[in-house]
C-alpha cells in the first residue's frame, strides 16, 4: 500500500514551486493552533479536561501528523482546516511540544511515596528474616525427600524401610505397599523439603487422598496447614490458602499414613495465582527443607497503576486499615516468639537486655538507618519498664514501627537530608533492586564507612544482583512488561482445539518464564538474544501439540532447550504463550498482537481508540482471511491513525494460528505476510513477515529505549526524569549495539538511580 496520501502535501508544494513556500502569506501555525485547536488540546498542548485530556505528544513522523490533521481535525468539522493550514499547524505542534513529553511531566523529581504492596510485603518478610534467618536453597536438588515406614499399633514410625527422593507427589498404591517388602495395610510416608514458587500471589494447596494426612506449608510449629489425619477411608480433597512471595523458598512437610484403609493414594496439587490447578511440578520442589519465613497474609488494596506502573502515591482509609491489621499480625507473631528471635530463654538473666537489643536492631533495619539517641529512646527504650511484660513491649514496638512513616515512606530520608548519604544510597539500592530493606551486610559496611566510594558501592550492588531477590523482582517486571499480571490462562474452543488443554497452557507459560529466567540470569544474554529468543524451553506436551521431535534428554523439570528455529519461532513475541494470549478463542487476532508488539516490543505510542468498534466474524465474507476482514474494518481515516501501525505489525504474525502453530495457508489461500511499516522517523519500510518485524525491533533504538524506561519505572517507582544521571538514549544505544547485557542493564540502572545525587568519596 503506497502511502501516497502522506506525500501529497509535499508533492503539491513542489508542483506549485518553491516560490509559494516562504511567501508572506504562509499561514501562521501558532495563530491557527490557538484559533482552532487550543480549545480541545490546550494553549500549550497540555490537554483540556472533558475534551482531549492528554498532552498532545506522540511518535508520528510530521508527514503523518499533517495528513491526519488535514483529514480529520478539528473533529467537529474536519473540512475546516486543510492543505497549507493543516501543514502549518502540524509543523508548529511538531516543533513546539509534540516530541517533548518532558514538558508535560508534572513531576520530574523523586516524590515521597509509600511502599507499594510488593515492597511492603518484601520489606516486612526481610525484616523478620534478619532474626529468623534468611531461607536459602544452596543445593538445588529437586523433589521432596520421602521416608517410608512400616507402621504398627499406635506407632506410625515403627520401622523405616526406605528413604528416597520423589519428584512429585502423585501416587496410587491401590491395595499394595510402596515397596514390595513393606506391609501393604499399614504404612506411613513422611515427605519434607521446600517449595520455591516463581510468582507472588495467593496460592491454594490441595491434598487428595482416602488416607490420613497433614500438610505444613511455611509452618513448622503449631497447627498444620491442613489436618486430615483421621479418615474413614473415603476419598476426599482438602485445601488451604496462603499468600506467598515469589522467588523465595518455604518449608513443606507432608505426613501421610495408611492404616487398614481399603485403598491408598495421595496427590499434592496447587493452584497458582494464574488460577489453574495442577500437581505441583518438580521444578518448584527441593529436597532441602528451609526454615520458615514470616509473610504478611493481609489482603492489601491495589496500588495506583494510573501511570502505567505501580506506585504508592495515594493513601486512603482502606490502605491504612489493611496496613494496621498487617502490623498487628506481625506484632503478635513477634510477641509469641521473642525467645526464638532474641535467642534467649525464660530463665536467662540477660533476657531483657537481649530483647531490647533485637528491638533496637528491628527498628534500625525498618527505618533503614542508625537511630539517633532521641529516636532510640522514643521508639525503644521508653516502651520497656518493670510493669510491662517484655512481649507486650515488643508488640508495641513492632506495631509502632510498621505503622511509622519512617518505614512506610522509604524516600523520606533522602528528602529530609540536604545531601544524600550512604544510608540514602543503601536504601535506594535495596528498594530498587529488591523492593526491600538494606540487609545487615549493607549496615555493616556503612558502620565501617565502606559505603562511600564507587568501587565499594558497586561491589555491594553486584552482590545484591546475585541475591535471589533481584531475580524475583525482574521476574515481576517481566510479568508486567508482557502484560501477564491480570491475564487469565489462554483458552480455546474445545471442539476445534481439543488438545489445547489448560495443562498445555500452563506448560507454555512455564516455558516462557523459565526461558526468560535462564536466558537473563544463567546465560546473561544481551538485548539482541533476549528479543530474538534463539532457544525455547519445551517438554513432551509441547512436542506433542506443536509436532516437534520429543525431548531426548530428561531433567527433573521436564523442559529442555530447543533451537527456536526448529519450532518456527521468530522472536520472543512469537512464543506460543504470547501468541495464544493475544488471540480469540477460535481465531488469531492481528489487532491484539499488533497492539502488543507495537507498544511493548517496538515501544511505539498507541492511544486507546476514540470509538470502540467491536469485531464480529459474522459481518464478513467467510472466505476472507483475518487480514482482509481487519483491513476492511479499519479503513476509515480515524481508525487508520493507529491501525496503520497496528495492522502493519499484527499482519506479519498471521503465520501463527490462535494457538501459535505455524501456517502458510488459510484453507487454499496462501497467506500474505508482507506489510508496509512507517517507522517513528517517517521512513517507510517493507516488513516481510515475522522475520522483518524482528529485524525492525532489533534495529530500532526506540525499542530498547522503551524497555529501559519501563524497567526504570518498575525498579524505582518514580518518574524517570528524576534521575539526571541516567541517559536513556545512551543506554539504549549500548543495548542495541550489544555492549550491555540485560543483567548488566538491571545493575546499571539501579546503581545510577540509587547514586543519582550522591557524591562519591574517592
Amino acid at each position, binding site marked *: 500500500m503506497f502511502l501516497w496520501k502522506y506525500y501529497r502535501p509535499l508533492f503539491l508544494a513542489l508542483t506549485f514551486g518553491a516560490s509559494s513556500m516562504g511567501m508572506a502569506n504562509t499561514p501562521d501555525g501558532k495563530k491557527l493552533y490557538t484559533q482552532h485547536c487550543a480549545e480541545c488540546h490546550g494553549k500549550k498542548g497540555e490537554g483540556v479536561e472533558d475534551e482531549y485530556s492528554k498532552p498532545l505528544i506522540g511518535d508520528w513522523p510530521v508527514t503523518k501528523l499533517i495528513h491526519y490533521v488535514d483529514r480529520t481535525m478539528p473533529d467537529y468539522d474536519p473540512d475546516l482546516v486543510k492543505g497549507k493550514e493543516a501543514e502549518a499547524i502540524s509543523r508548529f505542534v511538531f516543533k513546539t511540544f509534540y516530541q517533548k513529553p518532558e514538558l508535560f511531566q508534572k513531576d520530574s523529581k523523586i516524590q*515521597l511515596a509509600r511502599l507499594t504492596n510488593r515492597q511492603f510485603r518484601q520489606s516486612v518478610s526481610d525484616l523478620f528474616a534478619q532474626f529468623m534467618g534468611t531461607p536459602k536453597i544452596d543445593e538445588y536438588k529437586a523433589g521432596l525427600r520421602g521416608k517410608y515406614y512400616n507402621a504398627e499399633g*499406635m506407632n506410625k514410625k515403627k520401622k523405616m524401610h526406605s528413604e528416597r527422593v520423589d519428584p512429585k507427589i502423585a501416587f496410587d498404591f491401590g491395595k499394595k505397599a510402596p515397596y514390595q517388602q513393606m506391609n501393604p495395610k499399614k504404612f506411613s510416608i513422611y515427605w519434607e523439603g521446600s517449595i520455591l514458587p516463581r510468582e507472588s500471589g495467593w496460592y491454594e494447596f490441595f491434598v487428595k487422598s482416602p488416607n*490420613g494426612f497433614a500438610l505444613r506449608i511455611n509452618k513448622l510449629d*503449631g497447627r498444620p496447614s491442613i489436618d486430615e489425619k*483421621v479418615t474413614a477411608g473415603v476419598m476426599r480433597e482438602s485445601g488451604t490458602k496462603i499468600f506467598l512471595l515469589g522467588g523465595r523458598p518455604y518449608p513443606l512437610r507432608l505426613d501421610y499414613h495408611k492404616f487398614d*484403609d481399603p485403598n491408598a493414594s495421595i496427590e499434592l496439587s496447587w493452584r497458582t495465582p494464574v488460577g489453574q490447578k495442577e500437581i505441583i511440578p518438580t521444578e518448584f520442589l527441593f529436597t532441602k527443607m528451609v526454615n520458615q519465613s514470616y509473610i504478611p497474609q493481609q489482603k492489601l488494596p491495589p496500588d495506583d497503576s494510573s501511570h502505567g506502573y505501580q506506585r504508592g502515591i495515594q493513601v486512603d482509609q482502606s490502605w*491504612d486499615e489493611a496496613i494496621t491489621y498487617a502490623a498487628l499480625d506481625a506484632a503478635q507473631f513477634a510477641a509469641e516468639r521473642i525467645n526464638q528471635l532474641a535467642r534467649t530463654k525464660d530463665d536467662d538473666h540477660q533476657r531483657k537486655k537481649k530483647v531490647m537489643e533485637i528491638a533496637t536492631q528491628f527498628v534500625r533495619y525498618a527505618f533503614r538507618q542508625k537511630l539517633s539517641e532521641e529516636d532510640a529512646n522514643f521508639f525503644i527504650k521508653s516502651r520497656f519498664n518493670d510493669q510491662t511484660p517484655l512481649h507486650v513491649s515488643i508488640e508495641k514496638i513492632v506495631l*509502632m514501627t510498621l505503622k511509622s512513616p519512617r518505614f512506610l*515512606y522509604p524516600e523520606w530520608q533522602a528528602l529530609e537530608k540536604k545531601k544524600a548519604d550512604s544510608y540514602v544510597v543503601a536504601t535506594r539500592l535495596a528498594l530498587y533492586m529488591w523492593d526491600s530493606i538494606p540487609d545487615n551486610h549493607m549496615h555493616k559496611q556503612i558502620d565501617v564507612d565502606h559505603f562511600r566510594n564507587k568501587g565499594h558501592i558497586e561491589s555491594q550492588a553486584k552482590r545484591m544482583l546475585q541475591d535471589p531477590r533481584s531475580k524475583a523482582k525482574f521476574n515481576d517486571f517481566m510479568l508486567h512488561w508482557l502484560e501477564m499480571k491480570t491475564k487469565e490462562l489462554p483458552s480455546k474452543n474445545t471442539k476445534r482445539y481439543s488438545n489445547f488443554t489448560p495443562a498445555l497452557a500452563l506448560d507454555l507459560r512455564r516455558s516462557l518464564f523459565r526461558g526468560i529466567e535462564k536466558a537473563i540470569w544463567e546465560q546473561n544474554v544481551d538485548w539482541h538474544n533476549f528479543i530474538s529468543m534463539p532457544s525455547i524451553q519445551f517438554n513432551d506436551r509441547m512436542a506433542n501439540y506443536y509436532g516437534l521431535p520429543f525431548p531426548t534428554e530428561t531433567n527433573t523439570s521436564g523442559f529442555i532447550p530447543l533451537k527456536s528455529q526448529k519450532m518456527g519461532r521468530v522472536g520472543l513475541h512469537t512464543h506460543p504463550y504470547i501468541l495464544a494470549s493475544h488471540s480469540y478463542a477460535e481465531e488469531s487476532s492481528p489487532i491484539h498482537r499488533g497492539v502488543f508488539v507495537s507498544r511493548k516490543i517496538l515501544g511505539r505510542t498507541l492511544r486507546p481508540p476514540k470509538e470502540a468498534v467491536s469485531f464480529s466474524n459474522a459481518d464478513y465474507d467467510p472466505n476472507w482471511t483475518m487480514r482482509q476482514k481487519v483491513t476492511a474494518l479499519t479503513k476509515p481515516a480515524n481508525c487508520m491513525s493507529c491501525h496503520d501501525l497496528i495492522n502493519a505489525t499484527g499482519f506479519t504474525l498471521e503465520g501463527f494460528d490462535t494457538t501459535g502453530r505455524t501456517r502458510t495457508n488459510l484453507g487454499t489461500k496462501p497467506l500474505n505476510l508482507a506489510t508496509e511499516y512507517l517507522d517513528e522517523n517517517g521512513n517507510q519500510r517493507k516488513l516481510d513477515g515475522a522475520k522483518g518485524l524482528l529485524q525492525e525491533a532489533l534495529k530500532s533504538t526506540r525499542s530498547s529505549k522503551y524497555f529501559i524506561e519501563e524497567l526504570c519505572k518498575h525498579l524505582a517507582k518514580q518518574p524517570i526524569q528524576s534521575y539526571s544521571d541516567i541517559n536513556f538514549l545512551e543506554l539504549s544505544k549500548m543495548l542495541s549495539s550489544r555492549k550491555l547485557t540485560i543483567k548488566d542493564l538491571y545493575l546499571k540502572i539501579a546503581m545510577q538511580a540509587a547514586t543519582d545525587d550522591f557524591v562519591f568519596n574517592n
Partner: protein
Amino acid sequence: MNLNSINRRTALKNLGLSSLSLPILSQSSSLFSANADKTAPKQRLIVMFSPNGTIPNHFWPNTIGEDFEHKTILKPLEPFHDQLLILRNLHNKVRGDGDNHMRGMSCLLTGIELFPGNVMGGGNTPSGWPKGISIDREISNHLQSQPHTRTRFGALHFGVGVQDTADPWTRMSYNGPNQPVTPLSDPYDAYRKIYGNVRDKKKVRSILDDLKADLQKVANRLPESDRKLLIEHSKLVQRMDREYEAGSSLSNLSAPPPELPEGIRNLNENIPQLGRLQIDLLVNSFVNDFARVATLQYTKSVGQAKMKWLDVEDAHHTLSHEPDKNKDAHDKLVRINTWFAEELAYLLKKLESTPEPGQKGSMLDHTLVIWTNELGKGNNHTLDHIPFVLAGNGFGFRMGRSMSCENVPHNRFLLSLAHAVGHPLKTFGNPKLSAGGPLILG
C-alpha cells in the same frame, strides 16, 4: 435388665415414678415449645470435660437421694448441694471401632459408633470420626432454628490446654458424621471471635498519639512540597483514632467483656489461669446472650497435663494408669479431680452470683451445667459409670439429689437433654441404645 425389652413405663416404675407424672412432663415440654416467646425464661447448657476417669470411691456418693454425701472430690461442690444432680449407674455402651479413650471422648456426646478408619489407639480396631452429631450441637441447632431462642453464635466451644491436632482424642463436639468442631483453646482468639478486635483496636489506639507526633516530626523535616502525602496520612490517623475511640459494639453490651491479662501462653503451667479466663469469657458471652450452649474442654482424652500447681509432677494420663494399690498415684489423682471440681465450683459461683437478665433468680437457675469425663476409671479404661455431675435448674430436672440410672446406656440421658429444651427426639445416636426413651429426670 434387658435393655432391649425395657420400655418407658417400666423404667418409670423402676425409678419410683408413677405414670401420673407423664402428663405433667408432656405438658411441661409444650410449655417450652409452642407458647414460648422472647421474654420466656432462657435455657442454657454447659458441658465441662475433664479426662482420664475419676477415682470412684472418692467420688460417688453412697447414698441415693437428697441426703447424698460429698466425698473428697465433690466436696468443693457442697455449697451447691441443692442444685446438684448426681447421675449414678449410667454407662457409655457404644461399642465398635476405636479404643476406649477414643470412644470415651468421641461417643460421649454423640452416643454413636465411630467409623472404621485409620486412627489406631491403644487397642481394639482403628477408627475414624463418629457417625453422628453431638448433643450440644443438636441442641444448639434446635435453639437456633427458632427465632425466640436464636442467638448470635448458638454455641461456643472453649478449650483449656487443648493440643493443636485433630483426632478422636481431642474432639468431643461434632456437627455431624466426620465433622469435628475445633474448640477455641486460646482465650485471646475466643475474645476476638466474640467481641471483635476490640483488644486489637485498643492496642492500636495506645500508639496513635505517638504515631501522630512522629508523623508531624517527619513532615516538618521535609521540604513543604513533599508533605502532601504525610498530611493525608495524618488525617487518616486522626480518623482511626476517632473511630476506634467511639468504642464499639461493646457499649451496647449488658456486660462488658473481662479484661484479659496480656500474654498468657498456652503452656501447661498456665492451665489454671487459662481455665479461669475461658470460664469468664463463657459466662460473659451467656450474660450478653451471644450463645445458649457452651462446652469447656480441659486438655483431651488421655490428656497429659502436669498439675504442678497441685504439687503433681507426673503427667495426668500416666498417673491414671497406675494400679489402685499405688497410694501415691491414687492421692494425686484425687487431688487432680478435686481441683477440677473446684474449677466447676468457680463456674457455678459465677453463674449463681449473676442475676438472670430480665427474670427472677440467678443465671444458674436458668442453666444446666454437666461435668463429665470420657472414662469411669482410668486404669481399667472402663466406659461404665461415666461421671455425670449436673448443676443448675435450667432444664427443669429435679435437683438436689443423687439418682441411680439403673445401668442404662447414656444415650437415654442425652435424649433427656433434648426433650428438656422442647426437642422431643425419639432416638439419639445409636437407636438401639436409645431404647426406652429419655430418662425422667424431672
